[in-house]
């Protein structure tokens, strides 16, 4: 009797190089570039929100809607949203490649990740650019940022 153990990994034939974009290379480069940008964006975000002025106690509806009314912070937040979600999604894709064993599970996980990334990016972008900083109604009167009364 001779037992043969299951091979720990199955070397399959390398698929012939498809001409065109090398996504793996650009994905790797994207991770490096977006990583550096995100360090600046995220720590800038945290510093402005949590440390400047009154610090964390200044956070309320007025503070957030005031920021989202400013084109500078709109660009900042949207850049953060896109860079971080694609960075995270690409990282998760790598993990799936590492740990999902069959093409079917790989496909399911990658589709789910892509769907989550697309939905969150679309939703987030919509919120940032269509946000109404001065909602009407008496209930919001005290919450609205100060510039609303000047409108």
């Amino acid at each position, binding site marked *: 009797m001779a*037992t043969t153990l299951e091979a*720990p990994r199955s070397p399959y034939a390398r698929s012939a190089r498809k001409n065109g974009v090398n996504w793996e290379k650009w994905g790797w480069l994207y991770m490096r570039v977006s990583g550096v940008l995100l360090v600046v964006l995220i720590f800038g975000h945290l510093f402005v929100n949590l440390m400047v002025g009154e610090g964390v106690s200044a956070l309320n509806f007025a503070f957030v809607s005031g920021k989202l009314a400013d084109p500078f912070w709109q660009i900042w937040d949207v850049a953060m949203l896109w860079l971080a979600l694609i960075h995270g999604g690409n990282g998760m894709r790598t993990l799936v490649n590492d740990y999902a064993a069959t093409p079917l599970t790989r496909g399911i996980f990658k589709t789910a990740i892509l769907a989550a990334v697309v939905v969150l990016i679309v939703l987030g972008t919509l919120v940032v650019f269509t946000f109404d900083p001065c909602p009407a109604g008496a209930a919001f009167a005290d919450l609205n940022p100060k510039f609303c009364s000047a409108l």
Partner: protein
Amino acid sequence: MSTSTLDKPVVPETIASFTVTFNIRRFNPEVDDEPHWQDFDVQMYPTDRVLDALHKIKWEQDGSLSFRRSCAHGICGSDAMRINGRNRLACKTLIKDLDITKPVYIEAIKGLPLEKDLIVDMEPFFDSFKEIQPFLMSNVAATPGKERVQTVAQRERFDDTTKCILCAACTSSCPVFWTDGQYFGPAAIVNAHRFIFDSRDDNAAVRLDILNDQEGVWRCRTTFNCTEACPRGIQVTQAISEVKQAIMRGRA
């Protein structure tokens, strides 16, 4: 009586030896259904190596223990194995560097098909080594009877990666190699690096193109397992990163 005499007899200094327990992962394909752990007690000196322990077991306790070794001095690269969870050469791991209050665990390197005890099938490892074309490819013929001349600085550029002994300690410590059947593995990239940055070689572009594959250098996760495992102290992860940079630049 002024003649000097030996006041005390010279007692040769005795070197303390101690009993070390080795837990070895055994597998005999003719008898076993799956690998199992077996422990051996061996009398060892601190200056002994793990390879000496394996010899003592094979010669004095159980002749069926199978492992590879050739030069036994860290040059041939035959006896890479997983010692206490880390890939090491058995011939370069001293007993005094291990915690012998607990058993020492020894098993075959991971990620390659296990054949018997500590012996694995190295073919998948050498297959990816062959794929990067590890030989000098020059467009100019050398002057008859002369060497291909190179400056000290040009040699220094790839000095680190010439040290590779192809023991597979790095490749079999790489988590991407364990799971991805296509990844070249660190050793193949190190040996590609050795020729890519060699001023006498003219085919760097070919090797860079091979490693620019979807499963080439881009699968590297910079976990530094390979650098930590290398018995020759090669900065493996750095070499892989240099190949990545060369691909981005499009030349060595």
